[in-house]
């Protein structure tokens, strides 16, 4: 075939062929695939990122779509067709209010320590709540905070982004407004009153947005 000949003449396969390849790889798996992994699996010289862009456009408005999940990509059915899929629905364990709020706090405030979560909710965070979110692979441990006690931080995962159809944590609903309103800031209790022992925890929060 003429196409085959062309492919052998040039190092990288033609663009249309690269698009087919990305399509096949993404179709085959349920897990998001990173651009790096795509490139690793495609023939030498292929440009997965470019092929992805073309593919994404092609699936625009179709019954399945090409979704970006963090730095990875996955095929997902169009959300408006969910009603057809009743058979496939997996009954997920209903999350407690504490778990849902904790998840939101981690997502909007990440990287966030347990003490910060408790400060925001005004109540202790039970181990089970955090465990459940980790088990769902929606949150994971981030870097330790470089403050006294070096507390661990929590961040959301790619799985979280995938589950809620988010391209990145920056696309969280209302994130900009919350930030503009100063509600993602850390503010300590003026004078920190009599709770001097809590003061360190309060100080921990100062670098809450160090990564952004």
């Amino acid at each position: 075939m003429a196409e085959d000949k062309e492919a052998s003449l040039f190092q990288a396969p033609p663009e249309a062929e690269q698009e087919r390849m990305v399509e096949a790889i993404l179709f085959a798996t349920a897990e998001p695939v990173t651009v790096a992994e795509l490139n690793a699996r495609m023939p030498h010289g292929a440009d997965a990122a470019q092929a992805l862009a073309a593919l994404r456009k092609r699936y625009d408005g179709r019954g399945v779509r090409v979704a970006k999940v963090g730095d990875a990509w996955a095929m997902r059915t169009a959300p408006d067709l969910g009603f057809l899929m009743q058979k496939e629905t997996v009954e997920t364990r209903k999350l407690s209010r504490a778990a849902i709020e904790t998840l939101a706090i981690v997502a909007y405030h990440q990287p966030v320590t347990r003490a910060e979560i408790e400060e925001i909710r005004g109540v202790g965070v039970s181990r089970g709540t955090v465990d459940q979110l980790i088990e769902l692979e929606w949150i994971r441990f981030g870097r330790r905070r470089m403050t006294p006690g070096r507390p661990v931080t929590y961040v959301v995962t790619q799985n979280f982004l995938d589950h809620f159809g988010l391209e990145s944590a920056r696309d969280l609903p209302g994130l900009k407004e919350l930030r503009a309103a100063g509600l993602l800031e850390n503010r300590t209790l003026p004078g920190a009153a009599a709770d001097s022992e809590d003061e360190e925890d309060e100080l921990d929060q100062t670098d809450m947005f160090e990564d952004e």
Partner: protein
Amino acid sequence: MSDDFDSYDMPVEERLAAEALIVDVDGYEGPLDLLLTLSRTQKVDLRKISVLQLAEQYLRFVEEARKLRIELAADYLVMAAWLAFLKSRLLLPPDPTDAGPSGEELAAHLAFQLERLQAMREAAAQLMARDQKGRDFFVRGIPEDVTRVRRVTYTATLLDLMQGYARIRTKDDFRPYSMDREHVLTMEQALDRMRGLIGYMGDWADLSSFLPEGWDADPARRRSATAATFAASLELAKAGKIEIRQGETFSPIEIRKKADG
């Protein structure tokens, strides 16, 4: 004022709300959550909330709970104590000698905390209202297995190679250390031999002529025998049995039996 507060002075709506709160006390996620719920009765933007009024509502709630002998968790009581403190700060004229935060500052912080909690609640609700995987959109139903081809490559460095080679080639030369008795003449052996010989000695004789037979051909054996014989000679000289002399440096060492030895 609030000390002898009578709940029947409350507007009916507020009172019903307070009673509902008491019934549902277990349903609250801590004192901040309770405060947030109470703040709704003010029906204003959280930024314009009256913290003083809120503090009073909370304290009333705690009072009611006590009357009804409802056990409140410790953090509810801690919050009550703090709100009582805040209330006094807000009501009393500021003490110029007190360096601590003003009542307004504390109230502003509480308002901020409530607003932030409320914002997180709304964010959580927005999050959960999103299309979710496995409910609204779906993953590939028949995932195709990606076969993992594991390719093992072996590496070695030049150093590995050389060390390996040196290891083999020097294997014979590295034996466990042990004295090679066969090629060593000990001083004791030489001494025994000299003691037997000095009886027959005449005039000065070269030390080398005392080496045992068969020890002068191989250089190693010769060295060992010479050293042992010389040491034995010194021992005998010390005991007064023989005399030793050497004409000059590196000239032959000679010995003879001491006349009175």
